[in-house]
């Protein structure tokens, strides 16, 4: 890979710290740069639509997807088909049931989540006897060591699809999130907006990106990265554009720093934990600054 060569040269020339000579660091960084903005972009919608619990549930569903994949004989480090298949059908079924039942949303998601993690835990602990226990830990909390070039290709593909969809339908989705009735009647950009279809598309997109991010952030923690950057940005933004851009910046920054810092400081923690801790610290700082009355200057 030429990029790898470039980085190796930069290390040799003394421009970059030594850690960059290892290919897995490069892979993890590329993954972080791709995943960060995507999570941020979707996060804005997740926060506006109040789908926090839903995205946590889909994230935990990844646990089950991995277990099913390993059980069906996919390679333990890369159960891609089962992961995508399970998470996307989980999201679709949950959304479908939601529109067809009177059960309160919170209880419904709770039950789905409960069922998915029960199945996932049972299967995972069962297969954990066959494979290394640390795979479990990687799935739960993320690990940069497991990112392969194949993952990056997949992630790149998902990024392209997602960005095209966000660019094409993002405004409509935001409008239907903020004003569903208005969007239904009027449509954004002169077109009638199909709110139901948009909702399904959005739910699928969340599942897709959750799965894509599981490698470096982990199933348990991925939901948080959809939420925290957007919540933080919302505190310091006065309009939608700056809200969107700041969310993207915060989430990308946290992803990259979460990958680099533990390595630079030689702290052996999973990358997902580092990323989430960074994001929460940024959030706390922003809340503190706001309390001190600095918001005017930041906004």
């Amino acid at each position, binding site marked *: 890979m030429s990029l790898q060569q470039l980085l190796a040269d930069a290390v040799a020339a003394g421009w970059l710290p030594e850690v960059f000579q290892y290919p897995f660091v490069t892979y993890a960084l590329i993954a972080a740069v791709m995943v960060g903005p995507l999570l941020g972009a979707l996060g804005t919608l997740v926060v506006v639509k109040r789908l926090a619990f839903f995205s946590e549930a889909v994230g935990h569903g990844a646990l089950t997807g991995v277990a099913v994949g390993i059980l069906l004989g996919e390679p333990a480090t890369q159960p891609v088909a089962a992961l995508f298949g399970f998470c996307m059908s989980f999201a679709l079924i949950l959304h479908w049931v939601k529109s067809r039942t*009177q059960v309160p949303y919170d*209880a419904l998601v709770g039950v789905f989540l409960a*069922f998915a993690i*029960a199945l996932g835990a*049972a299967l995972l*602990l069962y297969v954990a006897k066959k494979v290394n*226990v640390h795979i479990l830990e990687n799935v739960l909390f993320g690990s940069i060591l497991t990112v392969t070039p194949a993952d990056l290709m997949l992630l790149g593909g998902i990024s392209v699809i997602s960005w095209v969809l966000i660019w094409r339908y993002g405004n409509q989705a935001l409008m239907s999130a903020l004003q569903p009735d208005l969007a239904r009647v009027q449509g954004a950009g002169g077109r009638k907006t199909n709110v139901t279809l948009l909702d399904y598309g959005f739910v699928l997109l969340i599942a897709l990106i959750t799965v894509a991010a599981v490698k470096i952030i982990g199933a348990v923690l991925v939901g948080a990265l959809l939420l*925290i950057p957007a919540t933080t940005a919302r505190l310091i933004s006065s309009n939608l554009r700056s809200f969107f851009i700041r969310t993207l910046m915060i989430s990308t920054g946290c992803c990259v720093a979460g990958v680099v810092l533990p390595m630079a400081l030689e702290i052996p923690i*999973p990358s997902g*934990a580092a990323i989430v801790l960074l994001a929460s610290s940024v959030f706390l700082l922003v809340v503190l600054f706001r309390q001190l009355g600095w918001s005017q200057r930041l906004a």
Partner: protein
Amino acid sequence: MEFFSALTEQTFLQNALIAGVLASIACGLIGTYVVVMRISYLAGGIAHSVMGGMGLAYYLGGSPFIGALIAAVVSALIIGWVKLYWQEREDTLIGALWASGMAIGVLFISQTPGYQVDLMSYLFGNILLVAKGDLWLMAGMDAVIIAAIALLYRPFQAVAFDAQFARLRGLPVNFLYLLLLCIVALTVVLMIQVVGLILVIALLTLPAAIAGHYTKTLGSMMALASLLGLAFTSGGLAISYQPDLPAGACIILLAAATFIISAIVAARKKPLETEAEA
């Protein structure tokens, strides 16, 4: 049937069974409130953030149980405060607490020297490792929960169903709400012993949700949920024994399967009515 003969001989199995009984009392009583008040996301947040306290206690060489207890109550108070005074950000902040607690826990556990197999038993529970001393602690917590509900059954009911009216009648609604969340936190810690923190939310909501299909009052829902919890914990333990499966996961799978059957039956019985309100 090997399970029953083993039960008469092995103390660890007897302990596990008693732990299941103690946990199901709490899960029936409190799970009912969680389902009725639609706060399963809140309960999930408390359960996951407990990991931070456990990790810290583990790192400092203290008892993870005490660490869990403190973390649970603290996060319950934070969540309650957010819910009461900063409601527009409620769901995202719970999500943030949920993940940060986990991340802190992982950080401290990874910093603790030595073999880290304990992590998995925190996450997925290990009912077979419950010791005699833990049982007494669990029984004490059960007693606190039962006493609180016995004393405050009506006020809690008022807060759960119509908080505004309760406030109008002069009840200290905010205090009662926070107290209830603290009791939820206590229950979460109690149940982590049995099914682990990832599965707590399942054991908390499933029995009560099933009970909600068949009961009309809060009290009967609690009773039925406790009985169901008892059936699930003992049944799951028995199922898991022979093929050597993880007990916590078996308990939850049993509960989930029952819920699905019950939901289908309930939907057939009254297709157009809304779900049982109670």
